[in-house]
């Protein structure tokens, strides 16, 4: 009889515990829901503050000149689309030329980065050779070197080659894997692919190049995509190298052209300057919206800027 009494006591205790747990859970759920709403309110506020400058830029690019400063409203009293058409031709050379220039530099650089960096990454990640860890360490060290340190000798070198005022100093280094960051990114990805693939292909008599081309590359499209998008955006926004190597306005890229607007500041062409600024950001924003997933994953796995 005694046993059943204890059983009963235990049963009561268990029941009590379950009740307390249930209450706690209800309380927690309620707290969580309130917390969630608060969080959303806070995050939406932060989002608005973060985005306001961009919207202000967009709005100012459409406003009449006298409305740009002195008011916080984002809605123009009348839309001045001619800021865009006039801005396009505001400099001695039309923006068509600058965009073509930027497109040439960017597309060649992206191709260069993808080819040379994936080559190096394939060697580092999938082939075994004497000196591999030594060269890999060297490659990682180059990631730390500021561009400013190599800038002057590179400039002298390219000047002696007669490459200044051409796109070669901007493009050729990319075919020599100078943006070593992408090697690192691709090595991280290539290493995850199963080794058995290479081994099986090797047994079937595939050459290392065939393995690279037919196995590694097709399986690495996400990594290649991430590298392509980042190099596209970085080259598109690049300012320092074009500033040094391009002197002739006909060869200017878009960022250099935008800077010309600043030299004319005070001639009250703010609307046009903002309009061209907006246009220069459009390709970046489009790529961001289209490839957001790749970009986010790329940063999370490799920790790039």
């Amino acid at each position, binding site marked *: 009889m005694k046993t059943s009494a204890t059983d009963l006591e235990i049963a009561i205790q268990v029941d009590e515990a379950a009740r307390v747990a249930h209450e706690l859970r209800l309380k927690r759920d309620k707290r969580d829901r309130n917390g969630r709403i608060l969080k959303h309110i806070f995050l939406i506020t932060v989002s608005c503050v973060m985005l306001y400058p961009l919207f202000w830029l967009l709005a100012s690019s459409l406003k009449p000149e006298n409305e740009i400063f002195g008011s916080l409203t984002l809605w123009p009293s009348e839309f001045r689309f001619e800021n865009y058409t006039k801005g396009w031709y505001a400099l001695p050379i039309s923006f068509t030329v600058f965009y073509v220039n930027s497109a040439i530099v960017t597309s060649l650089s992206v191709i260069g980065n993808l080819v040379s960096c994936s080559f190096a990454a394939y060697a580092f990640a999938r082939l075994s050779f004497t000196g591999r860890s030594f060269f890999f360490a060297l490659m990682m060290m180059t990631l730390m070197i*500021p561009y400013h340190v190599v800038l002057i000798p590179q*400039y002298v*070198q390219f000047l002696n080659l007669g490459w200044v005022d051409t796109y070669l100093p901007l493009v050729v280094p990319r075919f020599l*894997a*100078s943006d070593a960051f992408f090697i690192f990114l691709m090595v991280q990805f290539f290493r995850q692919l199963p080794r058995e693939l290479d081994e099986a292909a090797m047994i079937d008599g595939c050459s290392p190049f065939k393995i690279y081309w037919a196995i590694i590359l097709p399986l690495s499209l996400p990594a290649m995509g991430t590298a392509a998008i980042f190099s596209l955006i970085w080259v598109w926004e690049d300012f320092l190298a074009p500033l040094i190597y391009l002197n002739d306005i006909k060869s200017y890229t878009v960022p250099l052209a935008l800077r010309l607007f600043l030299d004319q500041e005070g001639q009250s062409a703010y609307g046009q300057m903002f309009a061209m600024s907006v246009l220069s950001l459009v390709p*970046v924003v489009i790529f961001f919206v289209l490839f957001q997933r790749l970009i986010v994953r790329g*940063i999370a796995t490799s*920790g790039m800027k």
Partner: protein
Amino acid sequence: MRRFFARNAPAYVFLLPWLIGFFLLALGPILASLYLSFTRYDMVSAPRWIGWGNYEYMFTRDRRFWKALQVTFTYVALAVPARLIMALGVAMLLDKGLRTIGLYRAIFYLPSLLGSSIAIAILWRQLFAADGVVNQVLAMVGIQGASWITDPDTSLFTIVVLAMWQFGSPMLIFLAGLRGIPRDLYEAAEIDGTPRWRQFTRITLPLLAPVIFFNLVLQTIDSFKTFSSAFIISNGTGAPADSLLFYTVYLFNEAFKFFRMGYASALAWFLLVIIATFTAIAFFTSKYWVHYENERD
């Protein structure tokens, strides 16, 4: 010998572009830069050896060098913690309890992608202009704003704010790190009645230490290299009153405006030393405060 060649040849073929690049674009220039730093070189006549002359001038007589160091270190000391705190704070908000974070993540990351462009630097100049947006907002709460860009006391602050605005990529890295912390640790702490703040200092911070370390190193190196925004906002000169004389801006002007290539090379080498020192300090001290979870004690 033949087997050695056969074994290594394919790899070196793949490595060739990078190897050429390494010697011609990295190692060669670094050594050349070291040599030039001991010369006077104006690109017209050949470099002339002057021994330690450039370094002596740099450390003992060049006021602008010290000013550039001061500006850059102030910037790094303000911008890096500000950016990392923003990044961690927002990442923690996004990490727990929200079902959809994709849109927020995108919005918070966008400025990082656009931030180094010339368009944004141009925009920033106008936002902080005397009659710009920032002062209008301040006027609404009754504060008479400064003339941010043209006042030497406040100009650096505008670039720190620009850096804070771009907290996106450390945020994404923190988010990935937070995902790696086992949920049951927090649940156990919750049952024990551990207050939120303690959960943060006892669980989140220690387990996130490797990620914090990684972000800290990355952002510090990155901040030392800040150029475009400072160059555009200061009109290429470091004005007003050298308050925006970032180290890289000073280096650029010495090299490509005044063609003092030898002296600029000395500046460049000192920058390399600074960055290497910071990286080394971070790595050597890391064992005292970074605990890797998969490490065997």
